[in-house]
């Protein structure tokens, strides 16, 4: 807009004393003067707008998928048509989950792409392992070394010594397919440090391992999670929760800490950690007594007959008896009892019940980590939560809670793979037949116990040395070349585990690699395409694009092309029968390209996509390149009621009592009001109140829903003596584990993780806000600052895990968020990690790296946690019983001291609680397993087990 200039200025300007007022070109204005969120789709290919300096740019807008958390939100990359660079990143308005919006970590993706300390070439270790010294090497050298080693392992029948360890993949089915093509049971994961507990609880109740709450249409949103700042799935769910709240829905949150979510709740129950099951059961009891249950749903879909059979065999098998007896069996769970345990008021329990009654079936409930992951027996919380939603008929209802699988897409492929024949006991140890899933967090202990060795170890999107408990033991395992032969880390940025690798291979960030992802963000099913946006743009412009490396910075590659290439090197001539799965479905015998890989999936594996693409006059692959996401269906509810097609003329058997329907020996459905329906994938095809599986697999005591005291419950803490429950599990909206470390704008906002403590407790130890304090666990201690706040309940201290990144003295690594540390043995056979140089400021291509104004970048508390494996779910129970005291004279901020012998003892103590199978099966066959092996692998006798003790 032209500004009015004074006469003097006009004169001065004409005399050339001052610069003339610049008038810059303004591209034509969009629309009718009202502001629009995004350019119209037609203009994405070639869009012109001004930058903040008012200089015009020509962009191509290319969609991809955010990878900073599992929500898989859409991103829209602004690729400058002249410079070819990604200038900014916004949301993708055509993405059904995120609807064009993002959390702080979405736009921060740009920071990660431009991180001046990225790994740009493959790196090879120099000097002994774990000294953090590397030198660049070529892709071929790395690939050959890895391929040879794997080939030889395969040929010598040591397949299970090859292990792929992944965190949160966002890589639908790719690796499961790869590993079963390789024929090895080598898939390791992160679930036992993440969500094993909740998965277990949900699975036992309704046969799916997680919920998909329909927040959008809910009347009551019941959260044992922090979905307004984190959670699966933060941004997509927060949008819908807030919409619902503004529509009049109510929010109830159980959380000992005032999370941002709790601060938005209508009812916040500040429960003592581990007592939530009691609160939920008390609520169920109140509802039962009030008769506030959905009788038809319970009649049809809750396995009450099973309950009466196994608990009250003499009782008459009818619904009313069941409801009466269930209430009686829960007799001890009065509001008063639950409230006294949880440290809340009985009225709050009743109020929760009232809220549920008011909402009817529109109860969207969610628990994922929180109480479940923190506490021994935490899976009972998830099961109670699931039963609660079932009793009020919320399961599968609009505004209720559906199983995740209904809203998640799974791709199909052009060849079938059979799955491994072996059972890998380093990943699935006998002791945990019911674990959800891979027992990854005790891997180093199993290896050190000599249960087996790892010949080739891949890590991708996982940083166990830092994000897992007991990092020192991980370091010990990784340092030992006789236990871990060759360690290959696939990562775009340095991390604490990669310091111990032999090869560190740079992989692209979310805008630099291929991938498809689907998440249950709402009552709908979508698939989102992650793609290297520069390559996509070239492809759309008709340019030849065959290797993602030629579009990424340096020699940064992508996983898909890497694995395909590696597979061909492992089986060059196809003799091993592996290669064929990675031959092109379009050019027989030729190596499949990523384009062909996704083209096939989009053309054949995504119902409705080809039609939709046709409408737009595009090929399915090009459609996904331009639009980025596709919604297969929306608003599908009550899928359990769907009828099962019985092939003509085949005879089914219907079991009288439960109504189970079998077709030549296999259960195909359940008979419910006059039809054969899918029901739920549990043994009874219904939602199970009592778990026969638990009874049969050694835990009769846990078969029924109950409150089983946590290892850190109110019974054991004693603030007077400085003994507290440490809650080391909460998230900041701005941080994502160890991924966001290289995003400067996120670091500026959040860069330390002080210990939250209630003022009463702080005063008891005369700790003032900001004082140094010592937090002692059973194996060591860490030194951190205290944050005195009313935002946490008395008797509980809480510390987020997001900060406290480190790099080795003299070693390589990111300086943004990482302090330089010295790791050394100290007296008493203990190890100490001490900060010798705080993180940043430092020199780099980016002037901002000199401007970090914060001195302290957090404390790595995870090192002080021993593995505490829940005997049933296998979950590492995160919460710690700690002694808190003011720091001593010798203590420094960031100090971590650990006695590794102790952590071995603690591991053994928890291992002793586990119960190996009595029968000859390794795991109940109805329980899911990622990368499911062939049936014979389930039989214990079946296998030569080199890796069992």
């Amino acid at each position, binding site marked *: 807009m032209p500004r009015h200039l004074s006469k003097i200025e006009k004169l001065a300007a004409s005399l050339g004393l001052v610069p003339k007022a610049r008038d810059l070109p303004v591209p034509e204005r969009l629309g009718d*003067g009202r*502001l*629009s969120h995004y350019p119209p789709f037609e203009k994405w290919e070639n869009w012109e707008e001004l930058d*903040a300096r008012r200089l015009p740019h020509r962009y191509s807008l290319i969609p991809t998928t955010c990878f900073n958390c599992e929500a898989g939100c859409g991103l829209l990359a602004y690729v400058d048509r002249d410079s070819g660079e990604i200038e900014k990143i916004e*949301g993708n308005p055509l993405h059904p989950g995120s609807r064009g*919006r993002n959390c702080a970590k979405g736009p921060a993706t740009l920071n990660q792409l431009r991180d001046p300390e990225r790994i740009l070439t493959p790196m090879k270790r120099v000097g002994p392992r774990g000294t953090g010294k590397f030198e660049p090497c070529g892709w071929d050298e790395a690939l050959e070394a890895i391929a040879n080693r794997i080939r030889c392992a395969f040929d010598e029948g040591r397949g299970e010594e090859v292990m792929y360890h992944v965190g949160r993949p966002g890589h639908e089915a790719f690796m499961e397919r790869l590993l079963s093509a390789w024929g090895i049971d080598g898939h390791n994961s992160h679930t036992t440090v993440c969500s094993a507990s909740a998965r277990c609880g949900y699975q036992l109740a309704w046969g799916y391992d997680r919920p998909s709450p329909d927040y959008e249409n809910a009347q009551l949103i019941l959260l044992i999670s922090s979905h307004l700042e984190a959670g699966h799935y933060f941004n997509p769910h927060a949008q819908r929760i807030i919409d619902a709240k503004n529509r009049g829905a109510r929010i109830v949150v159980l959380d000992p800490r005032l999370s941002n979510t709790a601060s938005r709740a209508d009812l916040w129950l500040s429960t003592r950690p581990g007592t939530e099951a009691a609160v939920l059961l008390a609520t169920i009891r109140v509802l039962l007594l009030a008769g506030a249950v959905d009788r038809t749903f319970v009649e049809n879909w809750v396995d009450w007959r099973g309950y009466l059979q196994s608990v009250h065999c003499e009782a008459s098998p009818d619904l009313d008896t069941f409801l009466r007896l269930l209430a009686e069996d829960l007799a001890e769970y009065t509001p008063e009892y639950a409230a006294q345990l949880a440290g809340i008021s009985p009225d709050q329990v009743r109020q929760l019940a009232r809220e549920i009654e008011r909402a009817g079936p529109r109860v969207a409930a969610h628990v994922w980590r929180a109480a479940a992951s923190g506490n021994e027996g935490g899976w009972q919380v998830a099961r109670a939560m699931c039963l609660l939603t079932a009793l009020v008929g919320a399961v599968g209802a609009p505004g209720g809670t559906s199983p995740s699988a209904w809203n998640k897409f799974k791709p199909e492929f052009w060849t079938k793979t059979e799955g491994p024949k072996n059972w890998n006991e380093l990943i699935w140890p006998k002791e945990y037949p019911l674990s959800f899933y891979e027992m990854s967090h005790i891997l180093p202990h199993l290896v050190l116990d000599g249960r087996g060795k790892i010949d080739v170890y891949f890590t991708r999107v996982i940083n166990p040395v830092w994000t897992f408990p007991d990092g020192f033991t991980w370091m010990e395992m990784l340092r030992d070349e006789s236990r871990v032969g060759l360690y290959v880390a696939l990562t775009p940025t340095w991390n604490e585990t990669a310091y111990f690798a032999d090869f560190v291979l740079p992989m692209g960030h979310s805008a630099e690699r291929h991938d498809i992802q689907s998440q249950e963000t709402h009552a709908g099913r979508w698939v989102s395409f992650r793609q290297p946006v520069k390559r996509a743009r070239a492809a759309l412009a008709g340019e030849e694009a065959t290797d993602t490396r030629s579009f990424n910075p340096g020699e940064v590659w992508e996983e898909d092309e890497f694995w395909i290439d590696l597979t061909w090197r492992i089986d060059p001539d196809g003799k091993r029968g592996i290669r064929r799965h990675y031959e092109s479905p379009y050019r027989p015998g030729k190596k499949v390209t990523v384009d062909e890989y996704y083209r096939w999936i989009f053309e054949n594996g995504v119902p409705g996509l080809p039609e939709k693409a046709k409408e737009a006059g595009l090929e399915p692959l090009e459609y996904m390149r331009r639009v980025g996401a596709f919604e297969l269906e929306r608003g599908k509810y009550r899928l359990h009621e769907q009828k099962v097609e019985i092939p003509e003329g085949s005879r089914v058997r219907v079991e009288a009592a439960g109504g189970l329907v079998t077709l030549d020996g296999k259960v195909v459905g359940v008979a419910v009001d006059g039809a054969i329906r899918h029901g739920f994938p549990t043994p009874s095809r219904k939602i199970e109140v009592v778990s026969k599986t638990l009874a049969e697999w050694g835990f009769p005591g846990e078969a029924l829903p109950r409150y089983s005291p946590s290892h850190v419950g109110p019974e054991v803490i004693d603030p007077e003596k400085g003994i507290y429950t440490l809650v080391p599990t909460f998230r900041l909206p701005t941080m994502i584990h160890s991924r966001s470390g290289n995003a400067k704008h996120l670091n500026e906002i959040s860069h330390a993780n002080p210990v939250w403590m209630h003022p009463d407790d702080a005063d008891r130890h005369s700790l003032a806000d900001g004082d140094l304090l010592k937090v002692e666990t059973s194996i060591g201690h860490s030194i951190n600052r205290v944050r005195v706040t*009313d935002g946490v309940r008395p008797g*509980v201290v809480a510390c987020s895990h997001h900060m406290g990144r480190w790099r080795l003295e003299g070693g390589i690594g990111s300086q943004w968020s990482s302090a330089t540390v010295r790791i050394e043995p100290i007296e008493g056979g203990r190890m100490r990690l001490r900060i010798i140089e705080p993180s940043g400021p430092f020199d780099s291509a980016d002037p901002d790296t000199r401007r970090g104004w914060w001195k302290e970048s957090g404390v790595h508390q995870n090192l002080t946690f021993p593995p505490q494996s829940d005997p049933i779910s296998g979950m590492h129970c995160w919460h710690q019983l700690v002694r808190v005291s003011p720091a001593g004279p010798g203590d420094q901020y960031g100090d971590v001291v650990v006695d590794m012998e102790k952590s071995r003892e603690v591991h053994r103590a928890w291992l002793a609680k586990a119960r190996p199978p009595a029968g000859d099966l390794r795991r109940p066959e109805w329980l899911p397993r990622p990368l499911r092996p062939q049936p014979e692998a389930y039989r214990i006798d079946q296998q030569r087990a080199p890796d069992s003790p």
Partner: protein
Amino acid sequence: MTRHRTPNYGFIIDNRRCIGCHACTVACKTEHGDPIGINKTWVQYIEKGTWPEVTRAFHVMRCNHCANAPCVEICPTASLETRADGIVDFDPGRCIGCKACMQACPYDAITLNPDSGTATKCNYCAHRVDVGREPACVVVCPTEAIITGDLDDPQSRIARLMATEQTMVRRPEKGTEPKLAYIEGHRDAPRTARRATGRAHPLGGTNDRRGRPGGRPRRRARLREARRLGRGALAWGDERRAGRRQWRGARALERHRQPRTDLPLRPGAHL
């Protein structure tokens, strides 16, 4: 249709929707390429009350695009100027770095860019508005808590909200007539100072097991709370002069608050 009247842009920040996620801050910095230390918009967390009657307020702070902007008045070189469409824009090309505007702004919305030595602040993403696009922070916001638009267009969402919801502005007593209005701006959370008695809360941890209260008088705690209150008061307005009610009093906004009959009044109806 293209409209001929120049719009009158403003902001509403709806604290019923804000979840304090900081996305606006990051989106803004990315859009403007601002260096570490410069935040045209930032999110303040303030905890109020005592456990368990405690809550956390999120205050998204930025330039208010005042209708009567002291920063513009004091700027010697018209580097800061109020555009016809109500946006208070700035031109680093004219700034001499005298920092007068930073003294003039009652909201601390202006910072000095270390690179250019010139003042900078939220400019409503004028460069985007000029091509017809919403500001970066608006587009990113997960919960659509930031509402922009033409206050003079009765059909615009912002005008409708202004007409139907209770809004407040920061420090109206300054007479700057801010055009950034907050819904539930200064959340009326319990502003109690901590009890000085040292008796723990009946549900608290100090009487967890033996049920006996503990703790000594909490002087520190009380001071801390007092400090927080002060912070709120200075940021939001001077209760001694403009009483609570007056928070809605800014004239610039009053204009738009004639009760409208054609609108459903149910909260959230605009969604």
